[in-house]
């Protein structure tokens, strides 16, 4: 199969959705001629024109509300935040409006919108352009949260998100944009709420999200040389979370390491760990569940400090070895 990058896969999903459904349109800052801060929407303005690929002023609160309002009357807006950090400026519309409208107004209206945003550190952009804030949104009933790690997943999950009748926060990772992988050319969807076992193994389960999936897979390859077979599970959708797959893997291996880039405290790893110990997997656990999250500090600018602020392959290797050897 042909290989394309993660960002090409996202662009292809947007293009296919817009070709298929004239209600779908894009809005965001510098997404037109500029192609978005990371080039994800490059070329779409030429293909679909300025009405459906709309450059907006730097008004995150109002462009979020604009997506909500358009969705209310039957459009299918896909909004891009230039950085996930700036979701804080749109929070009122996401949390108090988009997430609540269907429930609060007695099922009379729904809000089929997608918000895309690049998250993550590693680019030297420091504290206000590097955060992974997905747990904020997973906390809110009424929102769905999707966080793909591969080009294949990115395309299929984005198309499913656009089809979904609810507001979906689609979290991309800046360091994944250039990653290549096999992606079918046709339209396909991956249902939300289904985890994917990225590597099978019997000794330990590594549950990882987004960029961390790749660090976990790299770690797993090295662990295999030491005779440790790690299973790597990617939830792919944080809300709804696929408890069944996560519990089944934890039950099988009895040892769990959870890896996520966001600040460790209150991150999605805390939720996953809690769900596992509340489940039947508890009886099968041979060791404490380890959470590897980002340090509880703003992302620093300095290259070395930034590197050490979030989990790396070595961090995962160390944690898995300790868990497998019963040293925790």
């Amino acid at each position, binding site marked *: 199969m042909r290989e394309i990058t993660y960002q090409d896969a996202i662009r292809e999903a947007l293009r296919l959705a817009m070709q298929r459904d004239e209600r779908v349109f894009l809005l965001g800052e510098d997404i037109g001629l500029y192609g978005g801060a990371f080039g994800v929407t490059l070329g779409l303005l030429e293909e679909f024109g300025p009405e459906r690929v709309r450059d907006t002023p730097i008004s995150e609160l*109002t462009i979020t509300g604009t997506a909500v309002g*358009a969705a209310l009357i039957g459009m299918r807006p896909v909004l891009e935040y230039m950085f996930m950090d700036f979701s804080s400026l749109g929070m009122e519309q996401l949390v108090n409006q988009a997430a609540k409208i269907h*429930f609060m107004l007695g099922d009379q209206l729904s809000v089929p919108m997608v918000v895309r945003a690049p998250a993550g550190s590693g680019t030297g952009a420091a504290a206000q352009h590097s955060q992974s804030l997905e747990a904020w949104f997973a906390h809110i009933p009424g929102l769905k949260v999707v966080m793909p790690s591969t080009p294949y997943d990115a395309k299929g999950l984005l198309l499913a998100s656009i089809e979904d009748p609810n507001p979906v926060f689609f979290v991309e990772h800046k360091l994944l944009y250039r990653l290549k992988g096999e992606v079918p050319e046709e339209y396909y969807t991956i249902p939300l709420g289904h985890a994917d076992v990225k590597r099978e193994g019997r000794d330990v389960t590594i549950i990882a999200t987004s960029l961390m999936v790749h660090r976990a897979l790299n770690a797993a390859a090295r662990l295999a040389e030491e005779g440790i077979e790690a299973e790597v599970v990617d939830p792919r959708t944080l809300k709804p979370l696929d408890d069944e797959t996560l519990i089944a893997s934890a039950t099988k291996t009895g040892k769990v390491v959870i890896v996520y880039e966001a600040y460790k405290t209150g991150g999605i790893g805390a939720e996953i760990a809690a769900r596992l110990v509340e489940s039947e997997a508890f009886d099968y656990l041979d060791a404490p569940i380890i959470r590897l999250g980002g340090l509880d500090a703003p992302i620093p600018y300095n290259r070395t400090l930034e590197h050490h602020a979030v989990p790396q392959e070595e961090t995962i290797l160390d944690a898995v070895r300790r868990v497998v050897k019963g040293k925790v």
Partner: protein
Amino acid sequence: MTDLVKTRTVESAGALSREAKIEMLRKMWLIRAFEEKAEELYALGKVHGTMHLSIGQEASAVGAVAALRPDDYMLSTHRGHGHCLAKGAEPRRMMAEFLGKVTGYCRGRGGSMHIADVNSGNLGANGVVAGGVPIAVGVGLGIQMQRSDRVVLCFFGDGAVHEGAFHEALNLASLWRLPVIFLCENNQYAMSLATTRALAVPQIAQHAASYAMPGSQVDGNDVLVVYEATSQALQRARGGEGPSLIEAVTYRWRGHSKSDRQLYRSREEIEAWKAKDPIQRFTQRLETEGTLQKGEASRLEAAARKAIEEAVLFAEESPEPTLEEILQGVYA
């Protein structure tokens, strides 16, 4: 430049039929009767949450909505009972919502602050100050992209002008020439804070100049003046010329909500505004011009109060939602 209209000669309102004017008065009485009854039910402990009454502000709700077509959209506020009734919501389903019943517009999940009625184009009241203002931009954009000639009327209060959302939204709606009418009901207090203590430019209509749209300040207690201003804005919006800002100056007779001890304004001020009762003013006008015969107004009031009694009966006899409802409807 901003066009400060003040109270002036009514033009298109002059073309209103007798029936249309009487319907406006009927709606105003329906709102007044509804809210007085809601307040009574609250005092009896039958309403679980708080409520924000618009008694004294009926003219801005009815005058603005009367200018719309039935298929035009509307967004309302936390003080939105009047808007919803004016747009066509059924009093019985609103009252059922107040009592938390499953027959209410929101199945008992929303209460007084969240009445929506999709069938009448009412896309929802909003519990967040300025919450609906950016949403109106999106509704306007949707209308424009769907090549429809509908318009969205967005109500908000003077408090919304404190919010950044107001300024961002007016900018974007004007930039994209969207069919939005921004209708500010300036009742002069955002909870306890007077407009003069909150806004460097307390003449709200003047803010329109910053966003290159017409702004008019009108007597919000004169239903025909509000109708006229809204009609002009509608004509502009339907003609693809973009949004307008209308500031309807009015006054709420009651406190902000049920917790208000009214320490921030005087009894004299409240009484002075009660003397400008929009219902009495409109009644006198209609009687003077001969549209209404003596006694007709009191029959309209009586009919409104009877309709509200029936609404209460419906609400009280309606079932409570089941516990399963808590997790239903979170997702579409």
